[in-house]
């Protein structure tokens, strides 16, 4: 029973996705309910996993292994450690919220939700896979539906048509996966036995020279999805064109796949390579943070602001990762979780505002707080988490990232902290422009606060930001347990002890 738990999490959205295809398009409510069931069904098992994970034993648990193609060493092998469980939780939350956020979606709803669920089952698959073949397979399943999701249901912005955004995004991400494919082949053929099993690969020590260049491939390949500079350009266009639920999933979860891949395939399998390149990773992450934040400041399209802020925040994730010490990497994973929730909330709220104001031009908004006070409050909470105000999840996450980096490359940590200040500027500016100031109501007759289904997702996400900010310990511990057994994340003397809440 417990062995099937992870497979269930992967298959639940997939099954719902297939069932949806068979439903007649006219059955609107049934379609939405099936989609909700498929998405929400992953939530209880994820929570169950978090609660039942054996914290004493640590390591990978809830394992299931099915031999798939023995002669090539392909095995369906799933297992999770604390780190993956946190990512599963995040994904389950965001997809459930995403289905709610697309409740009023009207155009080709059935196919939309079906693709969304297909994508999410790919995401779950990546987080549970312990076999490189399946990890790559799920990775591509998670990436490709995006082309259709943006192409069909996206909006054309001033800068780019939705078809162009979709094509750009897909080709850039697929270019990344071409690099990953080459890296996987290199790993596969330097083993004595034919195996894709990451557990076995991790035990093998690859030659330093090989680690150096394979890690670079892995870093760049997955890094494209994590939005590393200069391969981030797909992200603002893609996010700005995508419909709400897709932006939520993409910025909230999908970009994390990139960082997760670098950690699991790069750092864990090629620790030496990671150490060789950590300065480069740190520099690029710092550029991401500063460049993303500055770009966000210059945008007038609300979605572009959020999209660039994602580039900046993913920089924080990669910064923590580049520190290669448990503090920083812990922070990195926490930041993935925190940013996932936060950006999910942001895009859901932007979707609401756009639906009512029919515009995303910040300069022409003002005084919206009067008509939509709830949205204003939620947006402010998200904003505060965004620049890492204490008592929000952003604080603990960013603090750990910067501190971890301080221990490794203090200069980069110092530089990147400036990013927080810039973030505060653009977040406050956005909140002030949209919600405060002189009301500009004549142009926006449809303004009103969120409604039933819309409240569910947004309030839950905002609440989570605060809950995790105040009680980070359970999550941090889960992540920490996962990291302890990750090669490449060095446990320096006493370093574990400074974690908030203790190890």
């Amino acid at each position, binding site marked *: 029973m417990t062995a099937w738990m992870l497979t269930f999490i992967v298959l639940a959205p997939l099954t719902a996705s297939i069932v949806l295809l068979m439903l007649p398009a006219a059955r609107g409510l049934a379609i939405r309910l099936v989609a909700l069931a498929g998405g929400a069904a992953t939530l209880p098992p994820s929570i169950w996993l978090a609660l039942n994970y054996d914290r004493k034993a640590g390591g990978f648990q809830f394992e299931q292994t099915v031999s798939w193609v023995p*002669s090539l060493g392909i095995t369906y092998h799933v297992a999770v450690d604390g780190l993956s469980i946190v990512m599963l939780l995040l994904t389950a939350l965001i997809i459930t919220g995403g289905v709610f956020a697309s409740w009023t979606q009207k155009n080709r709803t059935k196919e939309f939700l079906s693709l969304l669920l297909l994508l999410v089952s790919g995401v779950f698959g990546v987080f549970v896979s312990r076999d490189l073949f399946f990890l790559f397979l799920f990775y591509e399943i998670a990436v490709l539906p995006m082309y259709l999701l943006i192409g069909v249901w996206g909006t054309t912005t001033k800068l780019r048509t939705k078809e162009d955004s979709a094509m750009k995004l897909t*080709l850039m991400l697929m270019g990344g996966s071409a690099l990953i494919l*080459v890296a996987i082949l*290199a790993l596969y*053929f330097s083993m004595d036995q034919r195996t894709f099993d990451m557990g076995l690969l991790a035990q093998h020590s690859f030659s330093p020279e090989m680690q150096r260049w394979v890690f670079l491939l892995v870093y760049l390949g997955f890094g494209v999805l994590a939005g590393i500079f200069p391969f981030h350009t797909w992200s603002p266009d893609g996010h700005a064109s995508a419909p709400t639920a897709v932006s939520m999933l993409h910025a909230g979860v999908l970009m994390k796949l990139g960082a997760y891949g670098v950690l699991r395939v790069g750092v864990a399998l090629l620790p030496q390579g990671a150490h060789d390149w950590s300065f480069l990773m740190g520099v690029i992450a710092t550029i991401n943070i500063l460049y993303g934040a500055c770009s966000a400041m210059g945008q007038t399209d609300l979605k572009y602001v959020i999209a660039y802020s994602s580039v900046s925040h993913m920089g924080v994730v990669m910064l923590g990762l580049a520190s290669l010490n448990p503090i920083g990497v812990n922070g990195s994973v926490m930041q993935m979780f925190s940013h996932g929730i936060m950006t999910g909330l942001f895009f859901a709220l932007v979707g609401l505002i756009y639906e009512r104001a029919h515009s995303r031009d910040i300069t022409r908004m003002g005084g919206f707080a009067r008509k939509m006070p709830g949205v204003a409050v939620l947006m402010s909470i998200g904003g505060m988490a965004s620049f890492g105000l204490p008592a929000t999840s952003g604080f603990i996450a960013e603090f750990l990232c910067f501190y971890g980096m301080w221990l490794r490359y203090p200069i980069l940590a110092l530089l990147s902290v400036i990013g927080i200040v810039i973030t505060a500027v653009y977040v406050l500016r956005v909140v002030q422009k949209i919600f405060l100031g002189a009301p500009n109501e004549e142009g926006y007759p449809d303004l009103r606060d969120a409604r039933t289904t819309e409240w569910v997702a947004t309030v839950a996400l905002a609440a989570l930001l605060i809950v995790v900010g105040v009680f980070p310990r359970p999550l941090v511990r889960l992540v920490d347990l996962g990291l302890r057994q990750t090669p490449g994340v060095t446990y320096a003397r006493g370093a574990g002890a400074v974690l908030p809440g203790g190890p």
Partner: protein
Amino acid sequence: MIDLRPLIPHCLIVGLGILVVLLDALRVRRNACCLGFVTAIGAVAAIALDWMGPDARLWAGQVVADPYSRAFDTIFLAVLAVVALASASDEPHIAFAGEYYALLCFATVGLMFTASAGSLLILYVGIELSTICLMALVGFAKRDRRSSEAAVKFFVLGAVGSALMLYGCSIVFGLAGGTEYGKVLSVLSGVGGFPMVLWLGFGCVVAGLGFKIAAVPFHMWAPDVYQGAPTTITAFMSTASKVGGFAALLRFLLVALGAAPDRWAPVVVALSAGSIVLGNLLAVAQTNLKRMLAYSGITQAGYLLVAVAGASAADSGLAVGAVVMYGMLYGFMNVGAFLVAQVIEDHTGSGEITALKGLHRRQPLLALAMLLFLFSLGGIPPLAGFVGKLYLFAAGWEGGRFALVGLGAVASVIALYYYLMVALQVYIKDPDDDTRIPVSRQVSLAVAICVVATLAIGIYPKPLVQLGDRAAAALHAYAAPRPLSAVPSAQKP
């Protein structure tokens, strides 16, 4: 007395060809569409009979029946079955339906002999049999000027390919005193170096096969012929005929030239790189669906050549298995894509990619099928094309062709662009007119078979990998040096 049991399936297909002509002549096809079904059933029966037959080497190893040839026979016969099925709905409209199926059957027999060929002589006969039948089939739509033009082009260029090949065969025969691969190999091992004349001979044979698989620079005929030929024939040519070329190429290179893998590998690498780059770049520029698929087929041949380049002599590595596997799944996904193209062309009268516009509204299931074929061709999991391409690249990597694999990986991203441009029309654009596109039951069934195969192979590739492994083991055993006279028949892997 030679044991002829391994040739029963070949005889069955020849008999089938004669049977359909007779049925047609006797006007049994009042009950329309029966000829296609008869052919399809016959092809499936031949697959079963083929696998029941014993392993054997007939006529001093000139014809070899082993799991290697059977694996390829299965591909040809499966494609024949699907194509025959899909043609069935047009039967009442085409003149000489019996001859159409008969020629298809004979072309298939030719391909089966190509896969079984253990000597250059049989190889040439097999290639010619299939090519000549296909020449007639390409021009089958006699009233259509494009079809006739395509037939002439195919005839002229095909004749050049055959002439080259025959020339090559004759040189090798003159030097080795025989055309059996075993003999060629022993002569080759005896000679210290690799004389220039032998080079010329082998080069000509490889060039002839290059025409068959449409690899750059022997690809010129493909786009025009694919575009002009009746679409079902294009489907057959682009899959079965192409894979037949690979079946022959692998056996020829690994067995006859086995002693000098370092000599022939650069040639294959060049063919592969050229096909991948040029096929891709030209495919991007196409606006006609069948032409685009023709260029994409050239690229796909390049991918297959990556694995061939990774194969080394007498090595039972991944290469053979990869080619068998990709040949099979390529058959299904490419035939599927061409069948969809045919439905659209029949209905709208246009072969342009834009004719697919808004297919998701006009025929949702067909649109979904097309999407799956396109993504599979683009190598997207969990579809068959993904596993297949990974397998090919793995084989290339194993053989040390790192740069080629890198090129292939990058090219797949470019390839995705033109597949997605079709997907854009199929799934994203809305149609100009909303009328439903009718699909006959026979074509639906054929497309459904292709969809199921594309999905099933992608999700659970194990049976096909095992098939490939058996084929590889068989070729390995065949390549192992042994006195030819000592092996009359029957060795089990």
